[in-house]
């Protein structure tokens, strides 16, 4: 039985997907053509917030928060990695949604 050498092993672990994160107010999504499948949703969210110039928490006297949605479902566990989401081929699309303060 053949065993994987360390290079092959690392290559096996470092799978990538084309990651798209759409933020509804912005026409162009954030795209990472080689996102590692070991990336957590927390990492994706942080990168997307930075890309779109957004901040969570206390902002300008109020509070803002954002959520990631996949296949129309909000992802409450941001510790999961991209490989735990069912991708459509090598494409993975997430939606970043702002939580509005309501009166």
């Amino acid at each position, binding site marked *: 039985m053949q065993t994987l050498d360390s290079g092959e092993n690392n290559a096996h672990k470092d799978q990538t997907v084309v990651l798209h994160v759409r933020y509804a107010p912005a026409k162009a999504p954030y795209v990472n053509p080689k996102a590692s499948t070991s990336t957590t949703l927390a990492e994706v969210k942080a990168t997307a917030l930075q890309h779109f110039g957004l901040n969570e928490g206390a902002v300008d006297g109020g509070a803002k928060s954002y959520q990631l949605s996949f296949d129309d479902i909000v992802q409450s566990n941001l510790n999961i990695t991209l490989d735990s989401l069912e991708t459509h081929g090598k494409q993975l699309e997430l939606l970043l*949604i702002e939580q509005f303060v309501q009166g």
Partner: protein
Amino acid sequence: MATEYDLMLFDQHFQAALALPAAQRWNLERDQSAPLGIFCTMHPRTAPAETYKVRLRWTDYSMPFSLKFINMENGSETDQHAWPNIDGSRPPNFFICAPYTSEGNGYHPEWALSPTNRYKTPDEPLVFALIQIQYLLDNTYQGRA
């Protein structure tokens, strides 16, 4: 009064909305009585048999829009049973209390002065509106009013 530029953008964004993957779940049509208006029939992910017809109208495409859920039988905009219970919805008063609706801003004029809550015009207002409503239906739906 819609400008020619608004009308051109609206036409482009209507086509962009039709191209969204989510549009496969919608019946999206222009509102023939309002140049910057659409009707869209949508349903929550968790209740596909519960359909809602939303009407979106802009008088100024860069400003918050009017959002009403319409009775699918008679077209009434004052039937609270045509409204879903979702975050921000106020079925007895027929509005969504959020910074992106003209009705919400009517109740909260202070929002226009708030850096946090004032409406920031999206790149594609129509696309933003449809994605936002579908998100609310998919993730905050608690039944028909």
